C-alpha cells in the first residue's frame, strides 16, 4: 500500500514536468508579452521601457535558459513575480486558490451528498415510477450546460429573488471573508458546477448498485440469512462505491474545466478567473503557476481516487 502510494506519487513527477514544458513553450511562442500592454501615451520612450522591463524579467534570454531559471526558482519556492500585478505570484495564488478550493469542495460535497443517496434510492426501486421520474429529470439537468444553468441561477436566485449574491467570492462589510461569507458566495456557482458530475454520480451509483445487487456474493449474503439492511450496508454499498470512486477521480478534471467558465460567469475570484486574466495579459509566471496547480490538482485527485479505490478494494491493495 505504502509502496503503491509512493510509486503513484513518483509517477506524477515526469508528468508534471512535461506539462510545464508544454505550457511554457506554447505560452512563450504566442505573440506579445506582459509588457506589450503598457501603452501609456504619457510615458516617453515606451519601446525602451518595454525592452528594459523585458530585460529585467529575463524575457530576452533564450527560452531554454528561461525555463531552466523558472524551474530552478520554482523548486526553491520562488514562483516568480507578476509584472502585471506587481506582486509575487505565490501571494496572488493563495487567495485565489482558497476560493477555488472552497468552490470545488462545496461542489463535490453537494454532488456526492446528493448524487449518492439519489442513486441508492433509485436502485432500491429500480424501474419504478420514482426511478423513472428522477432519472428523466436528472437527465434533463445533465443536458443543461453548466454556464446556462449558471445564467438561470443568477437570473432567478440573484437578480430576481435576491437570495444569493450574483457574483464575487466574498461580500461587503464586516463579515466579508468569513467562512460563512465564503460559503454563501460559493453556493450558486457550486450548484452550477455540480451539474457536471452530480448526474454522473447518481447514474454510476444506480448502475453499480444494481450490478452488485444481482451479483453472486450478494446472493451469498442473502443465503446466509442476513437481513436486507445488513446486506445493503455491508455488501452492496461498499462494492458499489468502487466504480463511483474512479468516476470521482475523473470528475476533478471536469470540475477544474467547469470552474474556469463558471468563475468567469460569476466573477468569482478564483484560479479560473486568475488564469484567464493572466493569459490575456500574458502574465507568464502566473500562467505557469496556475497550470501546475491545476495539473497537480487533477493528478492528486486521481491519486486520492486511486488510494481510496485501494482502501475499498483489497484486490488493488495487494497487487
Amino acid at each position, binding site marked *: 500500500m505504502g509502496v503503491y502510494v509512493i510509486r503513484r506519487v513518483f509517477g506524477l513527477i515526469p508528468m508534471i514536468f512535461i506539462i510545464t514544458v508544454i505550457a511554457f513553450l506554447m505560452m512563450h511562442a504566442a505573440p506579445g508579452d506582459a509588457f506589450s500592454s503598457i501603452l501609456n501615451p*504619457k510615458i*516617453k520612450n515606451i519601446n525602451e521601457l518595454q525592452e528594459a522591463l523585458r530585460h529585467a524579467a529575463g524575457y530576452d534570454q533564450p527560452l531554454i535558459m528561461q525555463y531552466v531559471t523558472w524551474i530552478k526558482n520554482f523548486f526553491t519556492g520562488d514562483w516568480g*513575480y507578476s509584472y502585471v500585478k506587481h506582486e509575487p505570484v505565490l501571494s496572488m495564488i493563495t487567495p485565489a486558490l482558497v476560493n477555488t478550493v472552497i468552490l470545488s469542495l462545496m461542489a463535490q460535497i453537494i454532488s456526492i451528498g446528493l448524487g449518492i443517496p439519489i442513486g441508492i434510492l433509485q436502485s432500491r426501486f429500480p424501474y419504478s415510477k420514482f426511478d423513472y421520474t428522477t432519472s428523466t429529470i436528472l437527465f434533463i439537468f445533465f443536458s443543461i450546460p453548466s454556464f446556462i444553468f449558471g445564467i438561470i441561477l443568477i437570473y432567478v436566485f440573484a437578480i430576481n429573488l435576491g437570495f444569493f449574491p450574483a457574483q464575487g467570492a466574498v461580500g461587503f462589510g464586516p463579515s466579508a471573508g468569513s467562512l460563512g461569507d465564503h460559503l454563501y458566495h460559493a453556493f450558486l456557482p457550486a450548484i452550477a458546477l455540480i451539474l457536471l458530475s452530480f448526474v454522473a454520480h447518481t447514474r454510476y451509483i444506480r448502475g453499480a448498485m444494481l450490478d452488485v445487487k444481482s451479483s453472486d456474493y450478494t446472493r451469498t449474503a442473502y443465503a446466509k440469512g442476513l437481513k436486507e439492511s445488513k446486506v445493503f450496508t455491508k455488501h452492496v454499498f461498499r462494492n458499489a462505491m468502487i466504480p463511483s470512486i474512479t468516476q470521482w477521480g475523473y470528475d476533478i478534471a471536469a470540475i477544474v474545466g467547469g470552474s474556469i467558465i463558471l468563475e468567469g460567469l460569476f466573477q468569482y475570484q478564483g484560479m479560473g478567473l486568475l488564469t484567464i486574466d493572466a493569459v490575456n495579459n500574458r502574465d507568464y509566471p502566473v500562467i505557469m503557476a496556475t497550470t501546475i496547480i491545476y495539473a497537480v490538482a487533477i493528478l492528486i485527485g486521481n491519486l486520492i481516487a486511486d488510494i481510496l479505490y485501494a482502501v475499498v478494494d483489497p484486490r488493488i491493495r495487494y497487487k
Partner: protein
Amino acid sequence: SAGQTGGTSGKDDGKPVDGGTLKMAFGAKEFNDTLIPGLANDAFNANLVRMLFDGLADQNGKLELVPRLADKWEVSSDKMSITVTLNEKAKWSDGEPVTSDDVLFTYNSLVSPDLLKIGGDGGSALNTLKGYKEISEGKETSFEKTKGFEKISDKQFKLNLSEKDAVSVTNILTQRLLPYHILKDKPIKDWQNLDFVQAPSVVSGPYKVKKVQKPTTVIMEANNNYYISKPHIKEIVIQGVNVDVAPGLFAKGQLDYMMKGFNVADVQNLKRIQNVDVIAKPGDLFEYIGMKLYKPPFKDQKVRQALMYALPRKLMLDSIYKGNGVLLNGPLPEIIGAHASEKDGINSYDYNEDKANQLLDEAGWKKSSDGKRIDPNTNKPADLKLTYTQDSKTSQAIAESIKKYFGNVGIQVTLNPQDSTTKNAKLQNDDPSIDMWIGAWGGGGDDPRGLWASDAALNWERWKDAENDKLIKDTYASDSAFNADDRKQSLIKWQLHTNEQVPLLFLWTYYDVAVKSKKLHIPQDDLIDIGSLYNPQDWWLSE
C-alpha cells in the same frame, strides 16, 4: 455639445453630514495591483492611489494646475528651473510633516532602475529633470548629486531641468509622493514584499487603507489628519464588480457608487434603476480606425479623407453606443481645454458617400465592373485587412459597419479579430498582416507627443510629417507654451493640421459612465473625469 445626459443635477443643496460607509465598485474583473505611486498600472489601482496619495499639484477639470502638497511654485524666466514651496500644513496621516526629503526620495525612487526591475514605469514623467539619464541607468542614485534637485529648506526646494518643456512642469508637479520616513530604510528591490506597498497605511491623501482582502476588496478609512479638510465619509469599501450584476446591487441598495466598466450603450438602461443618478459625459478616451500609413493604399491623403466621408459615424454612434458619445474630428477630445471645434475651422467630415466616391475617383481608385475599386498601387481590387479585439462586442459591431460602409464605396474589408495583447504586439511590430485596426486612446492629456510625434512609439500608424512635428514642438518647447492661452492657440493650429491630414479615421469620444445612489453626494465641480476620484474628502452620504 451632444447629450450632456444623466442626473447631474448641479450643486447639492443639502448640508454635508459626516460618517457612513461608502460602498463603491469598479467595473473591473482585475485583481488588485499594488497601491503605491509608480507601481500601480491598472485603472482600478491607479484610481485608488489617487485617494491615498497627493502630489505637489493636481489638475482640475480645465487641466489647470491647482496646489496640493505644494503651496506655490515659480518657473524661472529661462524656463529651466522651478522653485517649489511646500504647504506648511501638509502632513502624512501619521502626523509627520511632508518635506523636501519626501520629494527627493520619491523622484529618486521612481527613476531608479531597481523600481523598474519590479515593474515600475521608469519614472519617465521626470525625464526633463537634470540627471534623469544617469539615475535611470543606475550611474547615480540621487537627483541632489546631479543638480536636478536642490534642497533649500525642509519646505522649499528647486528643480533644475535639462530642457525647456512646458508640459513637463505639469508632469513633474503632479507626481504623487512617497513617505520618506517610512520607506527610507527599505531597499526598493524588497518593496514587492512590503505590506506598505500592498496596503499603504501612511498616506498623504484623504483616505488610508484599513484592510486589503486580496483579491477582491479594499477597505479604506478617512485620514482624519488630511491637511485640506477632514473627509466626510468615514469608510469606503471598494470592490471589483461585474458590470452585469452591478445594476442589481444598486437596485437593492448594496452599492452606492460605481465607475468605469459600464457598457456605454447601457446609459438609457441604467436610468431605469430606482434611486440612482446616472452620470454620463464625454471622457478623454476616443476611438479611431488606425491605418498603417506607410502602406500604399493609405499614402494618399484623399483616400484617407474619402474613408472618413464614407463612414456614417453619427449613425454608428447612435446605434452602437446609443448616442452616448460625441463625434471626434481631431486629435484632442472635447474634455480637454484646448479642443478645437468647428468654430476653430475643424472639418467635421459629415457622412457623404458621394464625396467619398468623388475623392476616391480623384485619387485614381477606379471602380471595376463588379463595383469594387482597384487600388492603383497594385492594380488589384483593394482588400483591407481590419484587426480589432475579439472580446469587445462594440468593436465587433464597429468592424462590421466599416466593412459595410467601405464596401458601399467599393472598398472591400476583411475582418480579423484578435485578442488584445496579440493585436498590440503586432501593431507595435508593424506586423504586415494588419492594414487597419480599431483602436482607442486616452490619458494623453493635451501633450501631443506620446501619440502623434513622428518618433513616438505609440504612433502605430507611423505618421511621419515634418509640419506636424514642428507644430507639436510649438506646443511645449516655445516660450509661448508656458502661457496657457498661447499654448492653446498652438494646439488648435496643430489640431487643424491633423484634421486635414487624417492620419487616423477619428470616430468619437464616448461617455464616461458612472452610477451613484441618490444618497451619495459629489460636488460636481470637482469632477475632472468621472473615472477619477477627485476630492473625495468632499463627498458625503445622506441617510
